[in-house]
């Protein structure tokens, strides 16, 4: 065999090996995370006017039609803390103006948003929106509260299925629940127990799911969870309850939030009733930071937050270099960024 042929074979083999190694590194995330998905704006809501909500949904639908927003989108409409008014009606108190809205008002608002989206997408019949009715654990957190929230989500989905004939809203719009569970909102026992009860009742009395778009204040690797909360509590309200999925806040520029949520999933892999968590995506708050200011270290943009969480779950945490076990890997479908809507 001539030397030239042997050298040629060696070169071809070297090229194949190098390409394979590079592909492997890419697939394992060593070179770069995949491009983040297009993101959607979520909202801390004051308004419940169906005109306002329809227009917000319509604008999103048009943006999707024009390929400026994702074909598969999630929007959380956060109406604040659950409460009961003097007439005994359940509802929520908005974060900014402190207005009490009844569940009927909240249902109508989410329905109008979904309806607007449907029409805004025009001739596009495949784009999908999940619009989530959001609350938090800073108010009345109880089993009944979870049931009330689940019933509202069911009712909204029934509305979406009711029309227009031939191709109802439900073909493109799905309603889900959402809860911004944060240890800092309700710090001491029985707060975590009440949050677990909320999650149980939502799961037992509803037909749909909810996303926890909360925080994991003080979680490992920083320390233990803040106040009377435990890793087990955070896992339970994020994934341990049947209807729960995580859509966590990934705010910190240094990647610590992503590292914390990977640790929660890793804890679940070994100890959780349902194993490692199947994440729905990530939430950031750069929009809200632009409106009310924020700690300059907590203003991740949506692409930054999504990439940090992806790295933490699939390759190596930006914060501390921790390499996740294979069992926690997750592709992360959604990316959303929250702002105030007055």
């Amino acid at each position, binding site marked *: 065999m001539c030397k030239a042929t042997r050298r040629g074979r060696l070169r071809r083999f070297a090229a194949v090996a190098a390409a394979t190694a590079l592909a492997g590194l890419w697939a394992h995330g060593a070179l770069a995370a995949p491009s983040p998905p297009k993101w959607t704006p979520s909202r801390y809501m004051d308004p419940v006017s169906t005109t306002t909500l329809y227009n917000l949904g319509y604008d999103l639908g048009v943006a999707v039609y024009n390929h400026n927003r994702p074909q598969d989108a999630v929007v959380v409409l956060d109406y604040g803390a659950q409460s009961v008014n003097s007439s005994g009606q359940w509802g929520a108190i908005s974060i900014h103006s402190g207005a009490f809205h009844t569940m009927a008002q909240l249902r109508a608002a989410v329905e109008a948003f979904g309806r607007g989206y449907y029409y805004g997408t025009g001739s596009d019949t495949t784009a999908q929106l999940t619009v989530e009715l959001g609350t938090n654990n800073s108010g009345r957190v109880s089993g009944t509260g979870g049931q009330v929230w689940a019933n509202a989500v069911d009712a909204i989905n029934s509305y979406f299925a009711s029309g227009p004939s031939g191709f109802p809203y439900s073909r493109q719009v799905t309603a889900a629940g959402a809860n911004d569970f944060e240890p800092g909102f309700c710090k001491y026992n029985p707060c975590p127990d009440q949050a677990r009860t909320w999650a149980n009742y939502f799961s037992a009395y509803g037909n749909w799911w909810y996303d926890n778009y909360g925080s994991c204040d003080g979680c490992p690797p920083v320390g233990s969870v803040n106040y009377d909360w435990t890793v087990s509590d955070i896992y339970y309200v994020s994934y341990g309850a049947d209807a729960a999925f995580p859509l966590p806040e990934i705010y910190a520029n240094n990647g610590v939030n992503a590292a914390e949520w990977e640790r929660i999933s890793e804890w679940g892999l070994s100890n959780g009733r349902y194993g490692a968590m199947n994440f729905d995506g990530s939430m950031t708050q750069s929009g809200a930071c632009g409106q009310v200011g924020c*700690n300059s270290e907590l203003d991740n943009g949506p692409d930054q937050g999504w990439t940090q969480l992806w790295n933490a779950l699939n390759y190596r945490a930006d914060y501390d270099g921790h390499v996740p076990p294979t069992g926690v890997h997750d592709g992360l479908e959604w990316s959303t960024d929250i702002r105030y809507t007055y």
Partner: protein
Amino acid sequence: MRTHMRKQSRRRLLAGLLVAALAAGIAAIASAQGPGDGSGGHPAGGVAGPPLPPQKQAILDRIAQFKAALPNDPAAKAAAVANNPGPPAATAETPPLNGILDTSQAPFAPGRYLIENRWQELRGATLHQLYAGADASDPSQGLVVEQLILWPDDRDLTVAEFRTPVKAGALKVTSVEGHLATLTSANGIQFVFDLAANRFVSP
């Protein structure tokens, strides 16, 4: 001779490294789970993740069945869009609550304050809000944050922070009479905040 042996030895080393790189690359591809590898389920479908437990999968299956039973004639959407009634008629927004609100939520930057509760009252076209709590970076430092909002425009007019003269822990609003708000700290000390003068005054 020695040069030839060195060349052969280098070739063997190179070949060994290339084989190792090839094996590592194949192993990495096999073990990686990127988006869309279909290893897990998801409410909206199509994204990789840990496998779902039967309890969660049952929810998604139920939703899929619900959707599968619905009419699915894309042409009908064109008709719906053509006959779109447009947005519903405008309705008035609900006015803010008056009094003490027992919730720790607040429209401020996360990580700045630990809010315990708030008082608010709509006076004419101005919503007066007084948030009570502590500095998140020093929970022994009680404070209030006063915010004025133009209503019904729902537009922020002013926001200002006032710290207690002594560190006594997080504050809670316990009562408001006229322009004087009484607050109680975590360790039981009472403070009075003058909403007209915008400062703490002697109880």
